[in-house]
């Protein structure tokens, strides 16, 4: 009897001792940009946890700090972040450095259907040199958001030059900044200027991948950009970021902003921006083209197969049509055409049609291993030109030479 009790006790102790090892749930850690898209997904995480038993924790950070934090993790033997949110600007760098796992085996194994994904999005933030390293998460193509009440009966001008004139006149006459501009050196001004470049008919690279920035169109674009910063934008535009511009628009202090189209639902929210809600609209950039952008999901190479599988389970779930539609109903910027065209989504947000046009007309910043450094090189020249410390001609020449050098380095 006593021996049996001892045996039972030992067995229980062994079971209790080992229980945590196999009962411990998997937790995925993701470094996420602190934007509404993240908040929307975060609110749905309990649902995923309930379905799969996998925990997901988001650490939210401003964009500018994300790259360095991810790079330091990915260069180590093991990454704390086992689920990655990858910007399209790093979509060349991360696979080139060998930090991302190839997702094609996961797609094949789970029979995940890639057909509904917008091809431009898969090319921008999915494939790299033939491999599939990311699954598109959301798009952030850029367009023009403007105040309909300040424009009154007038229509938006069709060309970039006319838009800059309008911006200047708004600043002079309407008592608001004509444009809330995010012209801080680096990512903010590079992204913003790209819209001016594409709207003027300029390109970073030609169809053969050769540098095409040193062109009359690029000079026109930069001339207009400098003019807008100096005479149409808010005070302090050269140190302003995306957050600053959003606050200005929300606070009824600006007529327009060249920005990510998903800012519209934020500005149109009467709770968040009561002064301007119902008075804002979205348009394709005057000139017909704006900057394309997007984020993708990736899985670090330096992770165990179990964690990689768990990360894939999450990606498969969060980018399924059902979840994407649910996200879109809360303001998500879709990457699947079947979500853009879903009747319930269009019924709630009629301007998703305009958004689809913005996405469709978007053109991309050069994606290669040194995209992040190129933003810095270009951003410095743009800032120097906008501050009047260098000429438009010299800035374009230096920016084109910088792109040429980095392209060579990457090759």
């Amino acid at each position: 009897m006593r021996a049996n009790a001892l045996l039972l006790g030992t067995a229980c102790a062994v079971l209790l001792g080992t229980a945590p090892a196999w009962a411990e749930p998997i937790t995925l850690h993701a470094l996420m940009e602190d934007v509404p898209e993240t908040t929307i997904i975060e609110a749905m995480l309990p649902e995923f946890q309930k379905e799969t038993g996998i925990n997901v924790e988001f650490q939210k950070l401003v964009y500018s700090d994300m790259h360095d934090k991810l790079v330091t993790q990915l260069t180590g033997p093991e990454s704390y972040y086992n689920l990655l949110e990858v910007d399209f600007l790093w979509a060349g760098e991360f696979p080139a450095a060998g930090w991302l796992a190839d997702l094609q085996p996961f797609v094949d194994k789970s029979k995940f259907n890639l057909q509904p994904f917008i091809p431009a999005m898969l090319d921008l933030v999915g494939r790299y040199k033939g491999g599939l390293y990311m699954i598109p998460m959301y798009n952030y193509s850029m367009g023009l958001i403007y105040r309909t009440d300040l424009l009154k009966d007038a229509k938006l001008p069709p060309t970039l030059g006319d838009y800059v004139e309008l911006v200047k006149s708004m600043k002079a006459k309407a008592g608001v900044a004509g444009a809330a501009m995010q012209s801080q050196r680096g990512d903010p001004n590079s992204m913003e200027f790209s819209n001016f470049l594409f709207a003027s008919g300029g390109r970073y690279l030609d169809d053969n991948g050769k540098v095409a920035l040193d062109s009359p169109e690029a000079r026109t674009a930069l001339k207009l950009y400098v003019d807008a910063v100096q005479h149409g934008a808010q005070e302090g535009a050269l140190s302003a970021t995306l957050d600053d511009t959003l606050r200005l628009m929300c606070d009824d202090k600006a007529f327009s902003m060249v920005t990510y189209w998903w800012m519209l639902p934020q500005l149109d929210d009467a709770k968040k921006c009561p002064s301007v809600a119902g008075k804002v609209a979205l348009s394709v950039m005057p000139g017909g083209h704006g900057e394309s952008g997007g984020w993708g999901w990736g899985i670090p190479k330096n992770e165990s197969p179990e964690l990689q599988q768990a990360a894939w389970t999450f990606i498969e779930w969060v980018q399924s049509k059902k979840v994407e539609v649910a996200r879109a109903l809360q303001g998500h910027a879709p990457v699947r055409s079947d979500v853009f065209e879903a009747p319930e989504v269009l019924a709630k947000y009629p301007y998703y049609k305009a958004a689809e046009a913005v996405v469709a007309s978007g053109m991309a910043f050069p994606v290669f291993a040194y995209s992040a450094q190129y933003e810095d090189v270009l951003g410095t020249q743009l800032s120097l030109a906008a501050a009047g410390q260098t000429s438009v001609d010299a800035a374009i020449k230096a920016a084109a030479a910088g792109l040429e050098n980095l392209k060579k380095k990457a090759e």
Partner: protein
Amino acid sequence: MIDAVGATRNVTRRAESVRRPQGSRRWWRALGPSRARLTGWKFAAPGVLLIVLVMGFPLAYAIALALSSMTLLHPHLAPFAGLDNFAAAVADPFFWNSLRITVAYSLFTVAAEYVLGLVVALGLNKVVRLKPVYFAILTVPMAMSPVSVGLVWHMLLQPNLGIINHVLSNLGLGGVNWLGSTRLAFWAVAGVDVWQQVSFVILILAAGLASLPKEPYEAAAIDGATSWQQFRYLTLPMLRPVSAITIIIQLINEFRTYDLVYVLTRGGPGVSTDILSYFAYRRAFLGLALNEGAAISFVLLLIVLGLTAAFFAVTTRRS
């Protein structure tokens, strides 16, 4: 004669026996001083090891990086790059701009912190009541991380929605483009830095002033010296060692400034606040070139070491 020679030999032998210890005891005695040294090293070993691990290893690794081909896309030290990374850094036209800005920034902030710190410390030296309260308030900026300080000041200096411009506008002075103007951004960042760092200078100088002897002042007062003369000929010379240390510590701190620039301006507008540490960061993390970043950091280290040595030499000679 023979006896005298024998006696001499005996004395010599005795002397030699004293000089040359015999047997194991004598051998230990001969090594006495070395053993003491060995024991000393044993006691010092944990500290030395810690310094080697914490400071020596990273420094050696940084040197190796600076002389290597390691980038984030090529994560190997080989092949040896010699001085190529230094040459690449120096060849960049923005390097010299960054160096110039760093030197100007460091000299201005240290000078401002010292002058302001001394004025406040002298005032506090005369305060009798509520001294602990003043010191407690002074430690607040010092206890804040530079990133938090940067974020707070970024909001305060915001040209359209910031409090400072709001107050200035209400006073009829109009808003100021603090961080977006190439003329003002440098001074705005430096001003925020002084705001945070001056507390440290005040505390050190106040401690130095409190430790000065009273007798020279009493003698000077009897001789009819004015307050200015007492300050000029007693306080300043007696405070020189404390001042020297304070200035050196602050000079090193300011040369390493990075966080404030990162949060407030990202080196802009243009390149007006592009200090050397931010330049190194851009090379290392945006350019993925850890080797070039390390080389630039090493240049920064050499400059700081040179300045520190020069400052020590000057103050020691004067002392």
